[in-house]
């Protein structure tokens, strides 16, 4: 079979479709070697299309590749603390539960901050 599509396009399509993917899954899935994958991702990052975020999965360092538009959208949403504060809590568990942001810090996470401030406002 002849593949007309460029590998770079395919990489970008997968990243966008899933809203983020681990680098180690990407090269295995596309059946390309890790250095080629890394080269493509560096190029995509240089072109401002994706962002590589260092993460540790099962004790091994890898990158999570996220489409830039998603990061930008997220930033706007998270920056508005008032907006988050208006959302009622679904349960007693904080936003850290089932959060996929592996590199997040408890001291600087805005979602956790909003959740915490909600508790400062309403006594037990």
């Amino acid at each position, binding site marked *: 079979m002849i593949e007309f599509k460029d590998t770079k396009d395919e990489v970008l399509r997968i990243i966008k479709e899933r809203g983020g993917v681990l680098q180690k899954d990407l090269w295995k899935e596309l059946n390309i070697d890790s250095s080629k994958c890394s080269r493509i991702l560096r190029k995509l990052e240089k072109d401002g299309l994706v962002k590589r975020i260092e993460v540790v999965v099962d004790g091994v360092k890898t990158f999570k590749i996220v489409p830039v538009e998603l990061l930008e959208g997220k930033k706007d949403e998270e920056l508005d603390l008032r907006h988050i504060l208006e959302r009622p809590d679904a349960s007693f568990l904080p936003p850290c539960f089932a959060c996929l942001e592996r590199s997040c810090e408890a001291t600087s996470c805005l979602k956790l901050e909003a959740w915490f401030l909600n508790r400062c406002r309403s*006594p037990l």
Partner: protein
Amino acid sequence: MKEIDVDKLVLELVGRVAGEIGTILYSLQLEDEFTDDKLALELGIDISEIRKALFAMYEIGIAEYKRKRDDETGWMEYYWRINYSRAREVLKRELEKTKKKLEEKIDSESNAIFYICPNYCIKVSYDDAIELNFYCPKCGSMLNYLDCENAIRNLKEEIKKIDEILKTL
């Protein structure tokens, strides 16, 4: 304390990670392998929505997939399986992570005094508040002392609740 419903917590976990579609897929109790395109057809849900939910579930460890090339069309097909047997393990990991984050939060909030803008523009340390003359640099409102005693007590209670759940897992 009320009895903890582990299945409910797992559903909440799936819902938070993979949204409503994730919850639906998980609740279908799909014991066998399935392809995302076939499922999309059967459920009448857009395939990209299904894939997005499944990949989120994969990322947290509740779903797995294999890719195989379809001999007829030459396209890659995704064969999925939902790991119901791993759900408790994933739940345990997430609760342990959550507990650690809450402990870190308690630490950082107990070790400093904070001031906050009544319009939620900023939250600053006492030293920074002095620098700002206790006025918000964004909206000009007077900064208030943030009393987080209740919140910290609340967080400690939640850690206890998490410990209770962890004991049952």
